[in-house]
């Protein structure tokens, strides 16, 4: 079920009203109901894959208890490996199996042998598998590192794994945050609900107006990059930066907003990454739940930055390459991760990777100083450059795209594939960027106006924009569903 579909807008109020009117009496009822709703939410897409979620839930529920009850470290480690192998095995089979087979065939081919790729299978990628497997794994890892004690309530744990607002595309929650809330009875909080509704509206705006409206332009430019000059290709990848941001942060906002309606606070996933002043700050603001996951469960166990410089650089390379690979079974994502590692290492070596952790751009002023504007533009350009690899279908296409920019370095006015006015999109993105800059201090309060009338006008304009840019003929699924 898509957040931007009519089905969801029928499903959500029904579940919301039933939850607070009929299932509010005790915690068990609340969780049973949320669990059923979550399985229904996922099952509408494909009920067969519910068994995978159930399997992942069951394995980690029991493994966590075995880890906790084990006497020796060796035994604890052994049980941890059961969880890791099971979850990575699920991911490996459903997401990476064909990639490994094809890569093996290609490798053999390089050495002059011809091998038929007859081992590849027709596998459907279960939506959200990368998210919920990481979530359950984090639970077992937290138990292993003794950060948590295992839950003895299977229903609460199953609800933690399958909580529908964040099941298919995150934020990837930690048990310490989400499970602890699910083991406490929720009471209706008016303010929390209104904040949730505001986030849902803002998330929908980002998805429908920003991401979906520019998607046909990006698709056209990337599909026909051989025919366009450099100016158009740069426009295409810049617009893709906005598209992927609008799409994924829009999803996250809707997820966080929906969770609030049920009395649950999810972690923030996006903190205005487009205003980052260096790549390190960007990774503190973009897909926060994933980057912190890798930091907690990969980077720090490897020694993080507490080891010597060379090992730290190795660790940085590992987390970025793994993070790239997490996104998809394609060399383009690994290259994208590699580029980010290369962009991050100089910042790390200069000791500037933590300097923007606790402040935002133009912290105490209306407008950023020239230096910060330059930093933002440079960071945005570098990130956008890396997205050529993220968006291209193959490495060959990505290099073809770059080659075309180099060989056809000229300017030409781009015309929308459907003949629409391009100026509409430029004005829209300009206003969107300015508005995001205005609200940059708090990603969870997109409509922070003191006056009720101004707030109402803002909501109305946002809804009007959704009508102005709505297109019934485009694919409205979320980009990160494929991951």
């Amino acid at each position, binding site marked *: 079920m898509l957040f931007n*579909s*009519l*089905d969801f807008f*029928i499903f959500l109020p029904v579940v919301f*009203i039933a939850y*607070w*009117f009929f299932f*509010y009496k005790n915690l068990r009822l609340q969780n049973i109901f949320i669990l059923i709703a979550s399985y229904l939410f996922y099952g509408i897409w494909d009920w067969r894959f519910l068994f995978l979620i159930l399997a992942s839930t069951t394995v980690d529920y029991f493994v966590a208890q075995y880890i906790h009850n084990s006497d020796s470290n060796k035994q604890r480690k052994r049980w941890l490996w059961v969880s890791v192998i099971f979850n990575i095995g699920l991911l490996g089979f459903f997401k990476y199996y064909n990639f490994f087979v094809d890569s093996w065939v290609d490798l053999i081919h390089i050495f002059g042998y011809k091998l038929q790729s007859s081992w590849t299978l027709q596998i459907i990628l279960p939506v959200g598998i990368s998210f919920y497997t990481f979530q359950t794994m984090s639970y077992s890892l937290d138990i292993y590192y003794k950060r948590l004690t295992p839950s003895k309530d299977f229903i609460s744990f199953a609800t933690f794994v399958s909580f529908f607002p964040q099941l298919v595309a995150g934020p990837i929650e930690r048990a310490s945050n989400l499970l602890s809330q699910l083991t406490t009875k929720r*009471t*209706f909080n*008016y303010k929390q*609900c*209104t904040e949730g*509704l505001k986030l849902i509206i803002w998330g929908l705006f980002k998805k429908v107006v920003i991401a979906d409206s520019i998607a046909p332009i990006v698709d056209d430019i990337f599909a026909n990059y051989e025919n366009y000059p450099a100016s158009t290709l740069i426009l295409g990848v810049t617009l893709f930066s906005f598209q992927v941001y609008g799409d994924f942060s829009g999803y996250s906002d809707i997820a966080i907003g929906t969770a609030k309606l049920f009395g649950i606070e999810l972690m923030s996933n996006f903190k205005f990454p487009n205003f980052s002043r260096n790549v390190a700050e960007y990774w503190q603001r973009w897909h926060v739940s994933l980057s912190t996951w890798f930091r907690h469960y990969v980077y720090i166990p490897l020694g993080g930055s507490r080891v010597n410089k060379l090992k730290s650089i190795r660790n940085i390379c590992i987390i970025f390459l793994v993070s790239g690979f997490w996104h998809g079974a394609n060399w383009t994502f690994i290259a994208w991760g590699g580029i980010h590692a290369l962009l991050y290492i100089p910042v790390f070596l200069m000791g500037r990777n933590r300097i923007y952790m606790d402040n935002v751009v133009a912290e105490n002023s209306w407008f950023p100083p020239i230096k910060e504007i330059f930093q933002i533009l440079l960071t945005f350009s570098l990130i956008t450059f890396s997205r050529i690899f993220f968006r291209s279908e193959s490495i060959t296409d990505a290099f073809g795209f770059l080659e075309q920019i180099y060989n056809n370095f000229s300017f030409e006015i781009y015309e929308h594939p*459907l*003949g*629409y*006015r391009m100026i*509409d999109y430029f004005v829209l993105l300009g206003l969107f960027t300015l508005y995001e800059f205005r609200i940059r201090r708090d990603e969870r309060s997109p409509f922070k106006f003191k006056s009720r009338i101004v707030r*109402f006008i803002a*909501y*109305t304009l946002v*809804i*009007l924009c959704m*009508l*102005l*840019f*709505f*297109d*019934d*003929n485009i694919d409205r699924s979320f980009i990160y569903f494929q991951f």
Partner: protein
Amino acid sequence: MTILIDHLSTFNFKHKSLLKNGTEKMKKLILKSGLYIFLFLISLELLVRLFHLGKDTPTRILDEYKVEKWMPNQNGYSVTGNRRQNFSEYRINNSGFNSYREFTPTKKNIEIALVGDSFIEGFHQNYYNSIGKKVEKSIPEIEVYEYGYAGYDFADQLHLIHAYKEEFETIDHIVLGIKFSNDLTRGEYQVVTSRLALESPINKLLKKSKLLVYSKSIGILNSPQKLLYRLMNILNPAPKTQSVSEEEILRIKKEKENQYLANFDSLVSKYGYDKNRFTLLLDSRITSRLFISHLKENDYNYIDFSEYFEKSDHPTTLIYDRHWNNYGRDLIAKAISEYLKKKELIKE
């Protein structure tokens, strides 16, 4: 013990009052959301009206000859696209058709009638820049009367000419727009009640909301409609469609073509067709070969505008809409003008 009971009853009371408080706040949220939705709808209605995002829809009538047309003497604006990508003014004349002219044919002047559906009706252009006007610019000696009405098929067209026989007999030449796959589905004229149902009191009421009209035109109501359809199918499941072989498809296609051809002949014989004065306007790319051969064999004149469109290196249709854009209309006007010039209708 008493203290414990007291404590428990206080807790129970507090718990109950919390729940009560929660339920009341929940009710408040629902009521407030309802109020907000209502206010949003009102505000959006105002904004849609202010920026004229929704199209105006003229009133339809069925006249004394059972001809369906627009109620005379109305005007308004037609809008296409979410952001008013196409905005044009229409003017329904005294005869009930969109035109800058009043239709007053005389023996003295040279008049051409263009009869057809929405493509001829031309709500997607300013009425003073219509195909007829473009033809008049090309041949200043003539007057062009555009009898276009959305949804008119060949039966509607011939019935109109038949019903207003006197008027059309005074007109020197008549061009009838025809699309083989759409316009020959019936062999006899009958009032299209489904179209006139759009003038039912409930539809009239719904049309008063510009927001609703706008939402429908941009496709935002497609999902609810599909959902309704899905629900209806649950109650009354449609019979399973069987896979049809290619031969069967060909047979059905041929059968349909023969039926349409028979309908054409039936309409022509029923309502009359003056081969000297009447010309069909068609696109041979989407017209059955059988039909074209039939026209040729029986000396029916026709204008084939396909070659004009094929040669075009610009788009000929609108964004969001398959109707001809201004360039497409230029080409149609050119095709008609060149044909009329060849016909040498101009009276010395």
